């Protein structure tokens, strides 16, 4: 056994906890999780059945933590998990799983398959079987603070660009501000309009806010690749920044997994509760709406629909907020089939879009989104995740569908009552 494989197997042994043991014992092999996974439904390939993706973890569990399994191992009657097998499983654990959570939701015995895949990724990463794209992103996150190599001068350049465009000063490192606004590298690089929208909305709402020079990045590639130590470092940076600036609320940007990482997993990763609250930008905006601090005028004329990012709606419960917000600016809003908690993933979440070799499969899986959109008759697709946005645009371009994709925050900002 190679040293890396041994470390990987040890990591798998360590991550197997009571929930995982009960999940494996509870599985009734019904196959419902297969029908919930877009990589299975769009390929009809049984290897993409979610519970099957966990086979190496199941074997380690059985061989290490069950009486019969241990006996079989002792007698040389069980098949050990090998390096070659983990290499074979890499596309199943990473390329074809966006951790979207649809499988967990439909499981009749309540198995959280996403939780299990995350744990399997821990062992895969330690054994050296994480995809190069995610390894690179994680390395850059630790070294530069951003999975895409964005450094503070680039953020400052974008701040100046947005200041010039909006005429509003973008605050940096303001102690005592109410809100700390985080961004994803995707927004810094591809969607500067997000920061401009935040500036205009905060100005209208009369709220104080700031960016943080040592914690501007919201995304967490440690969560995606499955390395808790990296995930913890990245969460800690934000916590340090928020506590240094004494903010009341940290706003997670239009990014799915960043929200999961920071809001739901963060306190467990750092081992203590936060001294501030974490909200997704849509939760903040809906709060402003409720308090009368978000005032819009005019309506979008095109027929709009909303793509629910998996980590927001299914893992985070943010369902009503975007719909209430869209109601403010949409003349004609239509839901896609399966919208809300059963929405289909864009196909590129939780690191899949960073894996180049996964692209053909991702585009094949996009067919489910194509069907949803075609059935809806929508003319514009609104979402609230920068990664979803690009994956959707690529899929639409691939299938020659001319439907613009826009972010909800910027759409609202376009309709703010002028002069406020």
């Amino acid at each position, binding site marked *: 056994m190679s040293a890396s494989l041994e470390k990987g197997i040890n990591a798998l042994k360590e991550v197997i906890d009571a929930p995982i043991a009960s999940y494996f014992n509870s599985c009734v092999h019904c196959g419902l999780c297969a029908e919930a996974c877009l990589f299975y439904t769009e390929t009809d390939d049984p290897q993409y059945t979610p519970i099957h993706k966990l086979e190496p973890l199941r074997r380690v569990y059985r061989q290490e933590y069950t009486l019969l399994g241990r006996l079989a191992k002792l007698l040389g009657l069980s098949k050990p998990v090998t390096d070659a097998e983990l290499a074979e499983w890499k596309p199943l654990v990473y390329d074809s799983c966006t951790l979207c959570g649809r499988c967990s939701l439909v499981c009749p015995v309540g198995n959280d398959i996403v939780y299990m895949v995350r744990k399997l990724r821990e062992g895969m990463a330690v054994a050296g079987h994480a995809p190069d794209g995610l390894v690179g992103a994680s390395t850059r996150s630790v070294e530069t603070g951003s999975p895409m190599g964005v450094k503070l001068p680039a953020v400052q350049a974008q701040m100046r660009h947005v200041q010039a465009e909006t005429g509003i000063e973008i605050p940096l490192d303001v102690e005592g501000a109410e809100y700390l606004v985080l961004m994803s590298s995707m927004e810094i*690089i591809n969607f500067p309009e997000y920061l401009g929208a935040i500036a205009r909305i905060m100005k209208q709402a009369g709220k104080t806010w700031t960016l943080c020079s040592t914690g501007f990045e919201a995304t967490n590639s440690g969560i995606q690749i499955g390395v808790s130590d990296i995930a913890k470092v990245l969460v800690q940076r934000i916590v340090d920044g928020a506590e240094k600036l004494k903010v009341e609320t940290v706003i997670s940007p239009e990014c799915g997994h960043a929200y999961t990482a920071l809001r739901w997993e963060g306190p467990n990763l750092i081992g203590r509760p936060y001294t501030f609250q974490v909200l997704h930008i849509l939760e903040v905006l809906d709060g402003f709406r409720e308090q009368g601090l978000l005032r819009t005028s005019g309506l979008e004329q095109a027929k709009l629909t909303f793509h629910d990012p998996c980590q927001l709606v299914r893992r985070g419960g943010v369902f009503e907020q975007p719909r209430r917000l869209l109601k403010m600016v949409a003349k004609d809003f239509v839901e896609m089939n399966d919208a809300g908690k059963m929405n289909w993933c864009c196909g590129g979440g939780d*690191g899949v879009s960073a894996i180049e070799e996964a692209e053909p499969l991702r585009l094949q899986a996009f067919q489910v989104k194509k069907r949803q959109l075609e059935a809806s008759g929508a003319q514009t697709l609104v979402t609230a995740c920068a990664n979803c946005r690009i994956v959707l645009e690529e899929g639409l371009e691939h299938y020659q569908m001319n439907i613009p994709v826009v972010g909800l925050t910027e759409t609202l900002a376009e309709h703010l009552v002028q002069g406020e």
Partner: protein
Amino acid sequence: MAITDDGDFKQAVDDLSRAAQRLLAARFVENVLELGKDARLKGVVNAAKRSDITEDELALAFQSAKAASVDSYTQCGHQCDWDSQAGHFVAQAALACLKPEPGAAWEAATHARMARTCASIAGGSGTDNSEALAQYRIVTEFLKS
């Protein structure tokens, strides 16, 4: 009237017809075209500059600009190459030229500025807003013509 700030800029371009906005926006893109490496963009700009272009030709140019824009996104988790990203914003500016909605000229202008910002980040200098000044000159000349 000489345009010297964004307030005058926006007011001046808002009053223009859709066709005039497209012609002006094309000039903004032309000014940053050197930052984009996608060969399709030159064709898009040439199309946008034609006052006799048909709706079908506009639609074709729009598709081409859209494809160039989507192809040049920096993917989530990939190392950002700011020079390439400048090219993406040139494509976005070209796409804005051809959008049927109002406000094409201003949108193209902001994307062109972002292209210059990306190029300056790649060069290690950050932005100095020079593209805005260049655009003020372009608008002033356009309004005179």
